[in-house]
């Protein structure tokens, strides 16, 4: 998990935040502790309950109105709590002009106040995506990550079971590679897992006997992509005669990655099984299941209808 300071977002060039500091360089080392964003309009008017302190405080039209009310009504006063040390910064959006006394108070408390041309909604949208991505919990998984018919499939299994060979066959059939062997997985907000390559510039695959192959060179730019949502895990296993494999596909099986349940299919490997075809099928079947089509359930319904009819006769 990455840590951000106020200075980091001020300097950030990859996303356009259009920020400038109104309080100079003071307090830029303050840490942003959460990707949540807070609008402090209620806090301005005296309500401090459930005030998220680690969050960036965004000031828009509502806050400007609140500051105006405060100016006219002596009942309200900027509380010192608003400038406490654990609040990272204030960001004034839409180029609003802050009252001078506000900036003076901020300067005394060494609290950075930034300003952006963007509207509050646009700014919140951009900074949330940026912080959420950087602060997302991460792991690395062992396996091959492929885009099969637009669905992110993570192929796992022990070393030497044929994951990379399977990936090559899938590539030949027009599917795309995200990463081989070591896959970075991030948990984005909304229980979404996003898989990405560890070195984004190249996509390598190791084939025993041939060595390391650059997939982009061999198959072309259309055969690779940098990131995809993980929607299915296919685990390749050596065929175990004692073990019972799923024969119907009615039950839902899961594996857990970063606390999120992902459908897992266990595919036993034997000579003569075309794994790429099975994985293509698994991806298509998963899409159908997501839409509520279960072949086995439909067959079961038909079967019961027939047996009931026979019984009557």
């Amino acid at each position, binding site marked *: 998990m990455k840590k951000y300071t106020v200075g980091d977002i001020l300097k950030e060039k990859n996303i356009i935040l259009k920020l400038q500091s109104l309080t100079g360089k003071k307090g830029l080392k303050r840490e942003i502790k959460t990707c949540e964003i807070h609008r402090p309009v209620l806090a301005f008017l005296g309500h401090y309950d459930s005030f998220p302190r680690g969050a960036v405080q965004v000031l828009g039209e509502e806050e400007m109105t609140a500051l105006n009310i405060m100016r006219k009504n002596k009942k309200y006063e900027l509380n010192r709590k608003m400038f406490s040390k654990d609040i990272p910064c204030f960001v004034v959006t839409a180029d609003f002009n802050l009252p001078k006394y506000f900036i003076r108070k901020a300067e005394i408390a060494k609290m950075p106040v930034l300003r952006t041309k963007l509207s509050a909604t646009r700014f919140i949208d951009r900074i949330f995506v940026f912080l959420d991505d950087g602060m997302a919990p991460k792991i690395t998984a*062992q396996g091959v990550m492929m885009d099969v018919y637009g669905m992110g499939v993570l192929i796992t299994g022990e070393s030497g079971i044929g994951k990379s060979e399977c990936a090559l066959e899938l590539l030949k059939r027009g599917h795309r590679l995200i990463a081989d062997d070591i896959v970075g997985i991030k948990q984005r907000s909304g229980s979404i897992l996003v898989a990405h390559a560890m070195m984004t510039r190249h996509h390598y695959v190791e084939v025993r006997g041939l060595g390391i192959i650059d997939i982009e060179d061999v198959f072309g730019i259309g055969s690779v992509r940098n990131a995809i949502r993980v929607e299915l895990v296919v685990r390749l296993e050596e065929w175990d005669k004692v073990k019972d494999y799923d024969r119907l596909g009615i039950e839902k099986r899961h594996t857990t990655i970063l606390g999120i349940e992902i459908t897992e299919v266990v595919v036993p490997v034997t000579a003569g099984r075309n794994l790429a075809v099975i994985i293509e099928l698994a991806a298509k079947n998963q899409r159908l299941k997501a839409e509520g089509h279960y072949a086995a359930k439909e067959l079961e319904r038909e079967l019961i209808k027939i047996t009931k009819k026979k019984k009557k006769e």
Partner: protein
Amino acid sequence: MIKKTFSIKNKLGIHARPAALLAQKASKYDSSISIVKDGQKIDCKSILGIMMMAVECGADIDIVIEGSDEKDAMVNMEKLINERFYE
């Protein structure tokens, strides 16, 4: 399960050739062998995995081995790393 910490002394860290040697050696054992660095765990039988870790000279790595031939595997992995991958 056995675990041991090693400091990498090769000038160039674990680059292509040492990575290949590690993966080759590890693949000879039935035990699962992994390398852990900065909380990142990698299968030592995967050459790409090892290389993607980009282990630099002076870095500390943990070798974690679990399985029937773990002791024998650790002895040989230790030898390989301590001999600086014969460089």
